[in-house]
């Protein structure tokens, strides 16, 4: 049977009634499925509320007959969802990288501008830079053009270690995520650059 907004809202309501109400509201909320092939039962959804002054975004995990999860900004909830799924079986580096990419997108900071970058072109600089800012941009692009790449995994024993890059406001981070075969995750982040002349996230 097809999954409906009402199904998802009913599962989320015990956790966050405000999110459940938003999901039910077709006129002012979009809901979009985020593909995550490693999950067998659970589906991940991005809920975008078209609030009057700025968008509100939530990520939720849902499975028919299962416990729902609010995943936004919550790495532990993502791991809990993987455990509840019971069918995660990551066996290749490509699967690990794809899984971590979803994890990073879904649990990223949402109250500050943050985004995954797969190449230097994904780093968003402000327009109209002053000369010294433009010089900083040129230096950054020179140093990081060959460094920033899509999430990539390597096998480490029974687990995988995935390296990815993301921007948080005016900083560039290298993120290292260790992921087990069954989808448990642990994240470390290292700030590589700060105070870059990048676009600004609104209030």
């Amino acid at each position, binding site marked *: 049977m097809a999954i409906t907004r009402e199904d998802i809202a009913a599962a989320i309501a015990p956790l966050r009634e405000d999110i459940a109400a938003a999901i039910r509201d077709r006129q*002012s909320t979009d809901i979009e499925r985020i593909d995550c092939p490693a999950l067998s039962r659970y589906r991940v959804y991005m809920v975008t509320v078209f609030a*009057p002054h*700025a968008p*509100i975004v939530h990520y939720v995990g849902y499975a028919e007959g299962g416990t729902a999860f609010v995943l936004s900004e919550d790495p532990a909830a993502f791991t809990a969802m993987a455990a509840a799924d019971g069918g995660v079986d990551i066996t290749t580096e490509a699967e690990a990288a794809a899984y971590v990419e979803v994890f990073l997108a879904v649990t990223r900071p949402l109250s500050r501008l943050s985004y995954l970058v797969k190449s230097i072109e994904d780093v968003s600089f402000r327009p*109209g830079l002053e000369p010294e800012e433009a010089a900083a941009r040129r230096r950054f692009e020179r140093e990081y053009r060959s460094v920033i790449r899509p999430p990539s995994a390597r096998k480490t024993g029974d687990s995988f270690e995935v390296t990815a890059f993301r921007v948080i406001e005016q900083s560039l981070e290298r993120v290292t995520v260790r992921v087990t075969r069954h989808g448990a995750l642990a994240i470390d982040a290292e700030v590589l650059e700060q105070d870059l002349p990048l676009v600004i996230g609104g209030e």
Partner: protein
Amino acid sequence: MSHARIKASNTPSNEAAASSRSAAPDHAPAEGFEHAITGLSRLVALQRTAGNQVVQRWLRGPAAPSRPGLPPGSRRIQRHDGPTILSPEGEDKAKASGAEKTPEAKKMEEVRAILEKSPAGKAALAVIDKYKVPVDLNYPGPGSIYQPPAPGKIKILKTKTAEQAAFTLVHEANHAEASNLNKTADINKLGRAEYVKTMLDEETTSTVNAILSKLGMSAEDQKGVKTSPLLQERYAKAKKAALDAKKSEEEANKAAWQSIRDAFTDGTLVTSNTKEPYDVYYGKAWDKVHKPPAKEDL
């Protein structure tokens, strides 16, 4: 706190009385209400004195009075349960009860103290007090919002420091004022272009007000204030350029406002969670209402 402000409550008529409330225990029955009370007016008096939550607990207790026409246990008065909504009334309740202040109440006092340091900050406080807009400092987020309809609610991300929360409150207070004055854009009535323009203007003023609440503080008070330094720098730079060009103070303020307005559309400032320029976002919001999407495949 010594700041002067308008007291607010769910019962507007008690504004004058609120300022002279005496401490009451945070459990029912409150002082002066030990005996059976049979009239709704006494319940309202208790509500005014001790707050909705005390009345609620009292009504649930064994000493709850009966009201003719209602079965035992029926709810007799309108109330709200939320313990985290810190309206000015909530602050009064804490004072009236004599109970130790909650962390949220203490944080709200800090927020008020910060905002009392600048004219723009005081103006924001006046707005939330005038329109009795509750402020929730314990919002799980993500983000912080003003939630209409008027009077609406201001929900501020719980992880923000008092300083960050103060400037966010200024931002959201402008939205609250626009909503309460019916000046905010009506997505159902306006055309797309006019809606987008009106929303951009409102968002710009919210952002500028937050900047002014910092710039309006003394140099000493501004030390260490780090909220939105890039936009503050942009604003100050535009104003200085206008003043250097012999523009009047008013013209310089307009130029500085316009520099922030431009940031919303030129790619400098984007939505934090969807990474879109604000004119794009407001346009999509209008489309969402006027051109509903096709059936979803969930």
